[in-house]
């Protein structure tokens, strides 16, 4: 497909772009500059931990599979795949005639090298390793056939192979460059790496040999663009100013207030794609009193007016989230939509029941303890998340809860090491509902706790079953159960679904996005 997702609004604007596209045939040549909000950490997909890197991986590399707009998987470097009955291995047929940009042929050996190096501690792989789990080993069946063995069965495994972090790198280059591969990446993608000057730009150029497009982009051959340059522009005003002044042709992550303004700007077009996975969700820490009590959490759930928050802060450009999954993902439970509406009376009553009494300052107390909620958020104010905290603090005042907002650079320590929060927000881009496992499945001693710290055997069972269930309908059923459970238990406050937004000059044609919101550059050309 053309990549603009099935998700509602995105099409409106993007479509207007493709209207012009149909009017004129793609033009060969041109330099495309694309402003990123943050800098990739490394261009070695195996070692990267950042989503922004994946935007570049799309141009440099190919993955074995691709995720279609409808959520199904499609072929890319792998043309066919088959799961063993026990679910413990997959056999993949690989595309022939594919070459890495350094001339190394792509084959089963290459895939084996890639995956083996990810699980090798020497590589210091991080996110890729998490995605590849429970991969154990590979067997090269023949030049273009590979068998991947898993430790345990996993329904999400195949889907994860479509994720950018599991892009296939050139084994020759990777071996040769070692740690420096991240600065000298070689893949099979439609663009070749030219240079990276840190914090300034990453330059790519057309890979003329490219002829193995997955079909994700209409153009399966070499790209129309001669050059593709990513500029790193962290300051919003500058990034948007860059498009308006024509210094760059496109800029990502347009702040809501600018979306509103740009929509009426005749010189720019706006692209918007809702990402899939887990929405921005606030997780209660179940190990902190009194939030271990359902009624306390429900009180908060009822007191927080998410609609108002999302409308106020995002000016109608973001959708509010209702569930622990985003719409558009397999198993999303629409029935949760509109289920909860703010009700201060009920919220107050719940807290009354728990014995929390309002004091003179309007804050509830019990046994000499104030009812406080320690709300931790990262810095800087990404996607106005700090502002959400500010609004929630204001709204919770109404039910006598005092919110202490801690904004910290050091989330890693505060949240993931000390677990020192009552409420903490997170989101994840993912194509498979199995993502829920990482957040809601109980953990063993020594394993990393989940954000909720939930430990419910029933939920564990549902998640485990869904993880290996081959029948999609059954999987959907199980995930819906999980979602309902999470909602009923008021484990989380889902806030918004993040739309990936891009402002671009009118001359930019054919820009499209995959379901994760990552841009697809192979169709892009510049109209005169």
């Amino acid at each position: 497909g053309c990549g603009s997702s099935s998700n509602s609004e995105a099409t409106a604007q993007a479509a207007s772009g493709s209207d012009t596209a149909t009017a004129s045939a793609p033009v060969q040549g041109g330099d495309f500059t694309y402003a990123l909000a943050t800098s990739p950490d490394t261009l070695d997909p195996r070692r990267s931990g950042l989503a922004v890197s994946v935007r570049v991986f799309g141009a440099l590399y190919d993955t074995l599979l691709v995720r279609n707009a409808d959520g199904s998987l499609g072929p890319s470097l792998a043309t066919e795949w088959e799961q063993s009955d026990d679910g413990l291995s997959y056999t993949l047929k690989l595309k022939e005639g594919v070459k890495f940009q350094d001339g190394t042929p792509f084959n089963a050996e290459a895939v084996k090298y890639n995956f083996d190096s990810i699980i090798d501690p020497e590589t210091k792989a991080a996110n890729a390793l998490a995605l590849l789990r429970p991969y154990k080993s590979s067997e090269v069946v023949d030049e273009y056939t590979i068998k991947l063995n898993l430790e345990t069965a996993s329904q999400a495994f195949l889907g994860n192979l479509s994720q950018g972090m599991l892009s296939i790198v050139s084994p020759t280059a990777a071996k040769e460059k070692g740690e420096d591969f991240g600065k000298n990446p070689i893949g099979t993608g439609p663009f070749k790496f030219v240079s990276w000057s840190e914090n300034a730009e990453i330059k790519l150029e057309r890979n003329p040999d490219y002829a193995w497009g997955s079909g994700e982009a209409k153009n399966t051959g070499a790209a129309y663009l001669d050059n593709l340059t990513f500029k790193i522009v962290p300051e919003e005003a500058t990034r948007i100013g860059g498009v308006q002044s024509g210094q760059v042709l496109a800029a990502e992550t347009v702040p809501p207030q600018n979306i509103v303004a740009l929509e009426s700007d005749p010189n720019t077009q706006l692209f918007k794609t809702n990402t899939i996975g887990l929405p921005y969700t606030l997780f209660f820490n179940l190990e902190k009193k009194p939030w271990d009590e359902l009624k306390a959490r429900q009180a908060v759930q009822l007191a927080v007016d998410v609609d108002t928050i999302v409308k106020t802060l995002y000016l109608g450009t973001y959708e509010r989230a209702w569930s622990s999954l985003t719409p558009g993902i397999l198993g999303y439970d629409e029935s949760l939509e509109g289920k909860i509406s703010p009700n201060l009376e009920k919220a107050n009553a719940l807290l009354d029941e728990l014995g929390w009494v309002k004091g003179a300052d309007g804050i509830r107390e019990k046994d000499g303890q104030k009812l406080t909620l320690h709300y931790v958020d990262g810095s800087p104010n990404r996607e106005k998340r700090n502002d959400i905290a500010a609004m929630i603090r204001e709204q919770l005042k109404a039910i006598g809860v005092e919110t202490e907002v801690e904004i910290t650079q050091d989330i890693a320590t505060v949240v993931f090491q000390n677990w020192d929060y009552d409420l903490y927000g997170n989101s994840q881009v993912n194509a498979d509902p199995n993502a829920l496992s990482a957040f809601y499945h109980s953990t063993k001693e020594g394993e990393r706790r989940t954000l909720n710290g939930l430990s419910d055997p029933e939920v564990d069972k549902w998640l485990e079953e869904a993880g290996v269930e081959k029948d999609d309908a059954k999987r959907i059923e199980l995930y819906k159960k999980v979602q309902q459970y999470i909602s009923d238990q008021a484990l989380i406050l889902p806030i918004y679904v993040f739309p990936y937004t891009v402002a671009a000059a009118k001359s930019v044609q054919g820009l499209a996005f995959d379901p994760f919101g990552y841009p697809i550059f192979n169709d892009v050309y510049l109209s005169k």
Partner: protein
Amino acid sequence: MKTSAGAARRGAWRGRAGLAQAETSVRSGKRLRFASSDILIGLAGIALVFLVLCALFPSWIAPYSPTEMNTAAILQAPSAAHLFGTDYFGRDVFSLIVHGTRDSLLIGASSVIVGVLIGATLGSVAGYVGGRLDAVIMRVMDVLLTVPGILLALTIAAALGPGLRNIVLAIAISSVPGYARVMRGQIMAIRGRGYVFASRAIGAKPSFILTKHVLPNSAAPLLVMATLGLGSSILAGAGLSFLGLGVLKEIPDWGALLSQGRGYLTVAWWICTFPGLAITLFVLSINLIGDRWRDAVDPKRKGRA
């Protein structure tokens, strides 16, 4: 590092200062008096008084509660109802600024106080004791100067946790070397003054001389510098907010307001323009008054605008 050259310079100029002192009080009037410079000082004074009032009694001045989020009226342009408009929460910008005065001035004042206390102590010790201790202290100051202030700020915030206190500490510590240097120079200059020699000749104890003569007479330039430091601390605080090191308080200080509102400059210029103007107003007034004060304390510049 620069001491040798510095000493030479000072020596060369000092000779004349004494002579000039006696005469300048009369001699340095103005050819063309520009009265507006005095009006300016007056305005600065009024502005400062107003800001102090804001800091002390914000609710008397602000028409709205600073935390009230009127989500029905967000991003409203300045009008009679909202003098400085409303922000993206629907809060009244004027009330926010008025209520933010206290913290802003607090950041300025407390970081200056901490910085001056530490800096002046180190500088005095270095200047008065001299010798090896002086060398050690001043090398440490050099080290502090060399390590980028933001690094100090970030690490202090990281080590001690976020909060107003740590922002203050961060700014204070990075201002220490400056104060220490000035105090040291001042102490060394005063130590050589005639009245210190006279007191010594009388038989006064060193501790007496230090506390009664040297310190009181060294303090003035430092105090002037501290006034000017008030402004730069607030600016430094704003810079930290920009880098995401600020504190999310119910009532943001000006730096935080400015930094939060900067993304709206094209759609709602008033959100960050007015806090910016508040900072500018404060720093401007404090500098005007500090300059005037310096002229008053510095005998070489007496009577000059």
